[in-house]
């Protein structure tokens, strides 16, 4: 079968190539998905560039990407929750990475039926960003009338986090650039801050939760706008100590600046490490079918133009997801 593979670390055009590879083997707990669409995320680009070789080293060649939608065409003997012919979507686990291919084998625990009211292409763009948003805001225990700041409302995670937070009844502040203000408003955000003309720090005060999807100075600035005793949740900032210990970094300490800020505000800081989860995807499926969440697709590329899709992703200017139609 044909697959887009990472052949080395480095520039996108030099490091990705189409190869003929064998169909993946199906383990007893796996389903084999005939891929209809795959989507790419910032992490896929970072892996190609080699920025994550310390944390997620990969053998060469490796088929790229994690997000997928398609049809179950084969299943392992231990799989009871799916049938051949089911239409599904998934964020595949690290060890099964490789969705830009004609087939991918995935442990059934990471798979869910896809929402029935959206296309394969729209569904492929949901898993990684949707799981990140859901797991972050669920950890924060978001509830009706909470006030939350969600950074980068037009991003893959931000756009879904806004809709999830609104579905839970929260009041949502979000930041975005001038071009995106209108459509981000349409996602339901209560106060859309144009970061090119407004300073969010003078508008957002004492929120219950800050959801940091940008990192760097935004992580520490979060403590200026969160309320005393509030929560800062990040998917890009430094690891928190508990998470680092879980990954075996026994001596890890939160950077001093963050530790001080967090102590002063008595506000918690938590790094969320997204994990594949079919049950969570099933929850998102229901929310999509109930029209509480809608998928946002920027561009759909044909399989043969997958490398152009990565170059587009690298611009960081996509409004919603970049999707590759496989079959």
């Amino acid at each position: 079968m044909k697959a887009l593979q990472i052949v080395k670390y480095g520039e996108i055009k030099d490091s990705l190539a189409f190869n003929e590879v064998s169909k993946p083997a199906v383990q007893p707990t796996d389903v084999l998905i005939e891929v209809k669409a795959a989507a790419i995320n910032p992490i896929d680009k970072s892996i190609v560039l080699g920025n994550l070789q310390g944390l997620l080293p990969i053998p060469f060649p490796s088929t790229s990407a994690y997000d997928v939608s398609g049809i179950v065409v084969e299943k392992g003997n231990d799989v009871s929750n799916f049938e051949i012919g089911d239409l599904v979507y998934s964020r595949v686990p690290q060890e099964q990475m490789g969705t830009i291919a004609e087939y991918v084998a995935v442990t059934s625990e990471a798979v869910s039926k896809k929402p029935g009211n959206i296309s394969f292409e729209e569904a492929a763009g949901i898993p990684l960003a949707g799981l990140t948003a859901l797991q972050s805001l669920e950890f924060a225990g978001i509830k009706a009338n909470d006030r939350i700041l969600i950074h980068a409302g037009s991003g893959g995670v931000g756009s879904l986090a806004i809709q999830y937070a609104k579905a839970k009844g929260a009041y949502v502040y979000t930041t975005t650039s001038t071009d995106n203000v209108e459509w981000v408003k349409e996602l339901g955000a209560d106060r859309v801050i144009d970061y090119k003309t407004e300073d969010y720090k003078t508008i957002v005060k004492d929120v219950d939760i800050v959801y940091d999807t940008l990192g760097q100075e935004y992580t520490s600035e979060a403590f200026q706008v969160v309320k005393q005793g509030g929560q800062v949740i990040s998917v890009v900032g430094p690891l928190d100590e508990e998470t680092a210990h879980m990954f075996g970094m026994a001596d890890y300490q939160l950077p001093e600046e963050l530790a001080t800020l967090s102590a002063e505000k008595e506000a918690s800081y938590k790094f969320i490490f997204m994990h594949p989860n079919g049950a969570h995807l099933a929850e998102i499926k229901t929310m999509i079918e109930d029209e509480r969440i809608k998928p946002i697709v920027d561009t759909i590329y044909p399989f043969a133009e997958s490398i152009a899709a990565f170059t587009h992703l690298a611009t960081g200017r996509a409004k919603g997801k970049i999707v590759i139609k496989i079959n």
Partner: protein
Amino acid sequence: MIRQGQQVQNVYFVTDGCLRSYCYDKNGKEHTLQFAIKNWWISDYIAIHSDESATLTVECLKESEVVKFNAKALEKMYTLFPEYEPFQRKILERHVVSLNKRILNQLQLTATERYTLFITQYPEIEQYTHNYHIASYLGITQESLSRIRVEKAKH
């Protein structure tokens, strides 16, 4: 109860609940062919009568109670006991009438009229279904359905 692509052996008579038959298009979107509530029959008749695998999926939209009949056994029964034949004919006629009406409505009525007719005829179905079930039954987008509902609420 029936899955697209599988063999179909049974037809179902609904004694309680609400079911739906639908198919997927090549983009993975669902299209609803039929809803079935109390006293209705549902199956994939295309598969049964052409001996092909199912083109439809049949699912319950709420907890339902059905009587399952093996299609071949039913057929045999009608041969053995011809007095049941008119009963079968009545079922088929009703089915044909409702399908004809559905096709004509689709051809003649506006989206708003189709929706109005649907909720007048089957007010109970709406409570068990997602918007997209009804939208895909009427052959309109979810956005159009929402718009029609808002318009209706105004009047």
